């Protein structure tokens, strides 16, 4: 290993001495670790090789693995409220993350210490130059490598002491898996500023909420974003990949007369602006949001309920992501502080036998809809793979990062993180499929039948939900909360469905999944961002409509503030009435 590094290092030195003509990416030898013609990647490679070699000579214990990850982000955002521009922003950052490992694959400085509260590293990414300046890049890499090495060496000593005083661990698998080096270079992704058409549209869309005095808050935002990830590690992996994304965000809030805050949130995401929905579709969506908000204001408050329910595909997708998906993330099986629901259930039935679940980050779209959880390489430089997690109800596999667990020694390309945090296994595109799907109409008849059998006057239909997925800012708290917005009572006596508000999900919802007994023909796609210990990552979930035997809801706690004392300023009628 050391010898190979040395050869590469020498080769690089020779190449560095050559004048400008660097080989273009396409013609570069597919040899791991060789130069790419990209200033950032090649500088990372040089500094990485130098650090590995020099640290190995100089210090004990030496690092056995180093990776550099640079995340380049560019945003253009335009926001408006009630037809007026509320903000414009552009931002460009490059953040550096270093994975420094001291010890060996079996036991290293990332090993979890038991009895310690703060096991994961706090958020810390170093800003690195936003220019392609080798000197400045190297200087930051050097100083951060030094800092990381010292911290890692110190941590390893603590870990060894902790192991010495603790009882034996249940899962004695390694700390770091062995993977093949990869090499993949996409052309850098770029977005252009939001101008003209979309800037005008954002204002126009937000103006559609004018004239509705009860809509208190409106925020329409368009964001064009490009992400380029540069990755190099001491095993020879060299990656440059990323994506562009356009995202339209429409939010409106009102208050019921009892003070309950009610909101609607619609988001559209696409890799290019021309892939966003047509103008008239968006306008129709907004009108729908307004209608829903008006209906919600006067809708009855939901009483506690336990019984059958239908979850729309979109709602089912969120539920599966939050309640099921997080439990099949590999690193959670190793950590004794987690519930480890599925740790010992491999090859056992955990879902009804007609349901299968895969996580497939390589899937670009589903039913013509772009999927937000698409990626080719994860943040540990491992190629993403389609994983069958549950096959016909039987648990088969976990989503794996390079942190092995008992029985699963390799990564399957699910190690993901926001810049500044250490990757852990995360979901990409979670796709739920069912073998016995029935028409939506039949599903509804089945719901009513079940309700009647159970002696319930009504069942529930969950239309829209938001929650752990919401498009919050990058540094907002990452608490997740499945938040149903549009929930209807479906009456057994033929009365029309009734919208209710203030629904909160409780109980151990996992049992809700074992009680799924039918699925609908329609699929729902939810695109969003998921927040967990490794930060905010783009994800998608796809799910058919679900009929479950039992779901438990309670009244949500409402804001205590009364609605505004005075009518809105523009509402002259009510102002006049008030005066009289």
């Amino acid at each position, binding site marked *: 290993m050391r010898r190979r590094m040395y050869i590469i290092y020498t080769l690089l030195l020779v190449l560095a001495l050559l004048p400008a003509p660097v080989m273009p990416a396409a013609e570069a030898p597919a040899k791991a670790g060789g130069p790419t013609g990209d200033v950032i990647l090649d500088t990372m490679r040089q500094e990485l090789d130098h650090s590995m070699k020099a*640290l190995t000579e100089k210090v004990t214990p030496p690092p056995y693995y180093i990776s550099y990850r640079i995340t380049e982000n560019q945003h253009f955002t335009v926001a408006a409220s009630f037809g007026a521009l*509320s903000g414009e922003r552009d931002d460009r950052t490059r953040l550096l993350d270093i994975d420094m490992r001291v010890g060996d694959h079996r036991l290293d400085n990332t090993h979890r210490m038991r009895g310690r509260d703060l096991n994961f590293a706090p958020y810390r990414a170093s800003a690195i130059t936003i220019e392609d300046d080798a000197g400045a890049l190297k200087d930051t890499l*050097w100083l951060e490598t030094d800092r990381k090495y010292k911290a890692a060496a110190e941590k390893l000593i603590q870990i060894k002491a902790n192991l010495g005083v603790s009882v034996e661990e249940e899962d004695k698998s390694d700390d770091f898996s062995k993977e093949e080096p990869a090499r993949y270079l996409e052309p850098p992704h770029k977005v252009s500023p939001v101008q003209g058409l979309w800037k005008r549209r954002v204002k126009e869309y937000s103006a559609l909420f004018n004239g509705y005095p009860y809509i208190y808050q409106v925020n329409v935002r368009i964001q064009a974003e490009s992400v380029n990830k540069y990755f190099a590690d001491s095993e020879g992996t060299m990656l440059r990949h990323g994506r562009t994304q356009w995202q339209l965000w429409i939010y409106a809030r009102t208050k019921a007369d009892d003070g309950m805050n009610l909101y609607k949130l619609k988001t559209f995401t696409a890799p290019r602006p021309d892939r966003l929905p047509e103008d008239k579709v968006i306008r129709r969506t907004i009108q729908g949001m307004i209608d829903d908000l008006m209906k919600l204001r006067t809708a009855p408050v939901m009483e506690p309920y336990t019984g059958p329910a239908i979850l729309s595909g979109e709602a089912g997708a969120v539920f599966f992501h939050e309640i099921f998906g997080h439990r099949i993330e590999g690193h959670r099986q190793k950590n004794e502080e987690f519930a480890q629901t599925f740790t010992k259930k491999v090859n056992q039935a955990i879902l009804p036998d007609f349901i299968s679940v895969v996580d497939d980050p390589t899937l670009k779209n589903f039913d013509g809809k772009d999927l937000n959880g698409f990626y080719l390489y994860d943040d540990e430089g491992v190629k993403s793979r389609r994983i069958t997690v549950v096959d016909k109800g039987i648990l088969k596999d976990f989503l794996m990062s390079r942190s092995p667990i008992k029985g699963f020694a390799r990564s399957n390309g699910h190690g993901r993180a926001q810049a500044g945090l250490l990757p852990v296994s995360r979901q990409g595109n979670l796709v739920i499929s069912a073998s016995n799907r029935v028409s939506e109409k039949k599903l509804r008849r089945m719901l009513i039948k079940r309700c009647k059998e159970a002696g319930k006057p009504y069942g529930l239909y969950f239309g829209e939900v938001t929650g752990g997925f919401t498009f919050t800012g990058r540094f907002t708290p990452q608490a997740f909360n499945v938040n149903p917005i549009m929930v209807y009572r479906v009456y057994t006596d033929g009365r029309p469905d009734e919208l209710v508000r203030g629904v909160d999900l409780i109980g151990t919802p996992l049992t809700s999944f074992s009680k799924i007994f039918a699925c609908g023909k329609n699929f729902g796609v939810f695109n969003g961002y998921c927040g967990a210990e490794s930060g905010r990552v783009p994800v998608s979930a796809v799910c058919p409509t679900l009929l479950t035997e039992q779901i438990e809801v309670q009244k949500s706690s409402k804001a205590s503030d009364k609605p505004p004392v005075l009518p809105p300023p523009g509402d002259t009628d009510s102002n006049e009435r008030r005066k009289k």
Partner: protein
Amino acid sequence: MKGLKKNTKKHAASGGPPGALRGPRGGAPWTPDCPTGGAFVRSGALLVALVMLLTAFNLRAEHPVVRAMKDEMGRSMSSLKLEKMEKPYFLEYTIIDHQEWTIEAGFGSLLKSADSRTRMLKTGMRVGDYQADNTAFLDAYSIQDVLQDVSYLVVDDDYDVLRRALWLETDGLYKKSLEQLAGKKAFLRNQVRKEELPDFSKEKPLQLRLPARKVKVDADKWEGVVKRLSVIFKEFPSIQVSRVEFWASVDYLYYVNSEGTVTAQPQTLAVLTAYASSQAADGMILKHHVPFYAVAPWALPGEKVLAEEVRKMAGELEALVKAPVSDEYIGPVIFTRQAAAELFAQMVVPQLSGERPPLTDMEYLNPWIASSKWERRLNRRVLPEFFSISDDPTIKGYKGRFLLGGYEVDQQGVKPGPMVLVEKGKLKRLLMSRRPRKEIEHSNGRGRAGLWGRTVVQAGNVLVSVEKETSYRELREQLLKLCRDQQLEYGIIIKSLDDPQLSGPSQGTQKTGDASPVLRLTGPVVMVRVYVEDGREELVRGVELSDFSIKDFRYIYGASGDDYVHHRMLPAGGSLNPYLKFSFSSGRYYKYGIPGSLVVPSVLFEELEFRRVSGNRKRLPLLRRPLAR
């Protein structure tokens, strides 16, 4: 570099949003430079017509922001009332049109270049009456939501949307204020009170509209300057971290209150800072910085001067790395130049505030509540007799040097005047906002605010003068004489003190600012031993003052009137709470403080005590710097 070009970068900004102060037909009712050409003046009739026209403009052309503020305020004051509850007796809105540019570079390469434009709203409400209202009371409830002090408005001048936002903000605040009032009344019922002081002073309404300041910020140009300045550190290989940062802001502040005060004024600022840190061979981390302040980017020193100063700072830091660690020391000390200014800024200026602390039912908060250590010393001696201190926000310069702390009207709509605070060593007056204290009923126009957070009492231009005609050379002689008398080998001169807000995040060895309840001076940066034997100066490091307090100032031994001019951001209330001593020393938020200047002498203390700097020391970098390979 091409990919970095931004469409929004190059544009001039007037203090308000573009065209903010224009009337509908292009007239400029708020600006003094109205188009009164000579030809018109000759004809009386035309002049009258013109005056009438302008008046009509004035009525009709009131800026939509001000109109929205006034209208919604009027409606709230007349009809905002919950059943069986009190109405507000006072309401104030501050709207700040804020634009800022940030450029950061290290090692000749950009780390950041960003600009933003926002409009902020601060709302203040008082329920009860001038004698006893809901304010100045800290309980668990009010601590919780102080973070909501500022909200963001649309940047378009859209009357309807602005009014709507004001309506909701006012409504929310009304409900909060009622709860605060109830909480405060309940608390007071259980207290034995010694004095009944009014909560709010009555002041005359004021109308003052100042034109926006036209400031051009050429981001491309400053990117170049900042990058070139940051290259300088390449000449100093022992420096580990270095940054050069440029920051400019162009603000226009609208203030309207329910007593009839309407003010509008510009505030602009440009700051360029270089900071660096390194490690001595023993692992001690050393930091240094040099800041430049101006009212606008054009007023910053030329690039040549900037480069010289940055190079000087880097050179001093490199010398510090090699400098010996000082022994612990008890003896005479001179503070001169930046060190003297920071000494007064950190230790003395806070004592000039007459801010009366709030009531609180959380006793553990008391040590964190800022209050002047001189507040009970009115008409008593606080400094030696040869010292006087005044604060004068009405001046823009001092002996040809510009001052940063000038303003026409404070954030409560009160005009400041020059004030002598300490006269011949005796404390004569205190700086006041509209919260009265026992001896002082009225505001003297010192209610100031940072970009975020509420109004606090803060100085503007602090002038420290000494009567004695002593030169710095004579002061240095005095130091040496004191050393001889005490049979010391050397004395100490401190030339600069750390400012953690400017010198980058602390790395563990140097003390950071004023975040603790105990008043503490920041550590020395450039400090020399001056030897009795031959008067030579030797740079030393690694000691800091111990047991130093404001009481030591009464025994200042000597001073020399050098009139060193120093600019800095004075602490704002912080968005956490206006009453809590909370400075943003952890982040680089100094920019959102309150601009001020100090003019100070050098001062000599007869005896101060130094101890070794503690803190853990990391090993030096294991590998050689890329630059040096």
